[in-house]
């Protein structure tokens, strides 16, 4: 088994969308169900956390800047750690996450080399 990190990438449209409280409730339910499913099946190692939207970047010349000035594309909104036998299996798990269904992407990365 190998560990994979899921980085949830949210598109600017997704971040601008103002859901109604009812919609928020539905989205939350999807995530709770998915995480519970992961805990039961054993592939969820750590639900992880969300990252606040504010983002700074430190480059090689040690300059600090607002990340938005570098790339205005998707931002990483949070992460989770999962366990899977292969990249293919990890991808299948990622497909089942609520992220793609709400317009975001999941970057699946092997932890370690």
């Amino acid at each position, binding site marked *: 088994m190998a560990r994979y990190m899921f980085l949830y990438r949210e598109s600017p449209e997704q971040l601008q969308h103002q859901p109604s409280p009812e919609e928020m*409730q539905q989205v939350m339910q999807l995530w709770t169900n998915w995480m519970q499913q992961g805990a039961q099946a054993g592939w969820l190692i750590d639900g992880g956390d969300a990252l606040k939207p504010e983002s700074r970047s430190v480059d090689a010349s040690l300059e600090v800047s607002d990340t938005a000035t570098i790339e205005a594309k998707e931002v990483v909104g949070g992460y989770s750690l999962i366990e899977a036998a292969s990249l293919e299996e990890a991808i299948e798990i990622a497909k089942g996450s609520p992220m793609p269904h709400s317009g975001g992407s999941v970057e699946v990365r092997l932890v370690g080399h």
Partner: protein
Amino acid sequence: MSDRKSETDSDLEFDSQPAELVENFFRHESARMVATLTRTFGVHRMQLIEDCIQTALVEAMRSWRHGVPKNPAGWVHRVAKNRVLDALRRDATHQKALAFAHLDQQSTDRMVDESFEESQIEDSLLRMIFVCCHPLLDPGSQVAITLKTLCGFSIDEIASGLLLPSETVKKRVQRARKKLAEADISTDLPRDDELHSRVSAVHNVLYLMFNEGYSASGGESVVRDDICEEATRLCYLLCHSPFARPDSKALLALHVFHAARLGGRMDDSGSSVLLEDQDRSLWDQRLIAIAKHWLQLSRTNTPSRFHFEAAIAQEHCVAESFDATDWTVIVRCYDRLIDLYDSPVYRLNRAIAIAHNGQPQQALEQLLSLKSGGQLESYQLLDCVLGRINEMCGNIDVAIQHYESFLASSIAPHQRRLVEARLASFDRR
């Protein structure tokens, strides 16, 4: 990596099974926070407060994907408080007011925390009901802003629940908010001299809300059942306050009697079921008992229209079957209602009761005179009712004509299915 896991476990605040949010958490917390923060910072800041709350709820939603905290309400209150305080820090007028009152940011902070205490929240909600139902606003705006700020519905949800264009609802809410802010309506509870009219205004809004939700409920939008539920919830809050009057309790009883019958109003295919065909075992006996209890509590020497409406609903709820319904009592209740508050809809319903009470011909005459008086022009179901009563009089051909003209108008799909089935049954005869 291995010690990282144990580190995060304690902080994540969820056990092996992630916690779940209670139903309608976001909607209800939104309402509670608007009420609380508006009471603290004033009605003129309602827009700012609602914006900050929206931001806080979105933050909560994004964070809680990874696990719901043990005290989600506390979490979101804290974030909303900070958002509002941040916004006010940038507001010069507010800073001046603070200085004037010899308050600093910390004391404001404490004030908000205290206002979030459970007992205070209920009180704030009650104050907010009076603000949203303020006589400064017309009934349409009262209903719209109540649904928006006190029930946490979005503009689109309200529009679909009330069968109105979103743009109309949006304008009503904006106009209401602006009016309230400009008049800087106080969140103080009504004074004795205005108490009667203010409580009556609240009754009207809750009655309208419930009726709007109920008459359209069971259709394509689930929101409508939620609107009924919210009207009942707010009415319950009022009935538990020192402002409750006998008619408040009768109104609550009426809501709950109707709610008890929600289960039987639709069949599996999603079409309406007539009262006479409903499976009464689907009615919620627990709710019926609760409603009876409130109707008992509402006794008074000067019954209101809510008392008579609730009494009619009770007759239906306690009848063993449609045929066992005591129509004489129901007709009498409608008589009293019309004495008290004459309306074409009450007259129409009385005619239906008279028809079922064995006098369909008399009912038909009353209906036709109502129709020729032009009082029921906007009443969509009129053709449907005329069809049914003509059927009872044995005028099948006339009945069919009415059903067909009903189908030709723009009606909800669940009503269409019902009438189509009715027409099909004639073909078989």
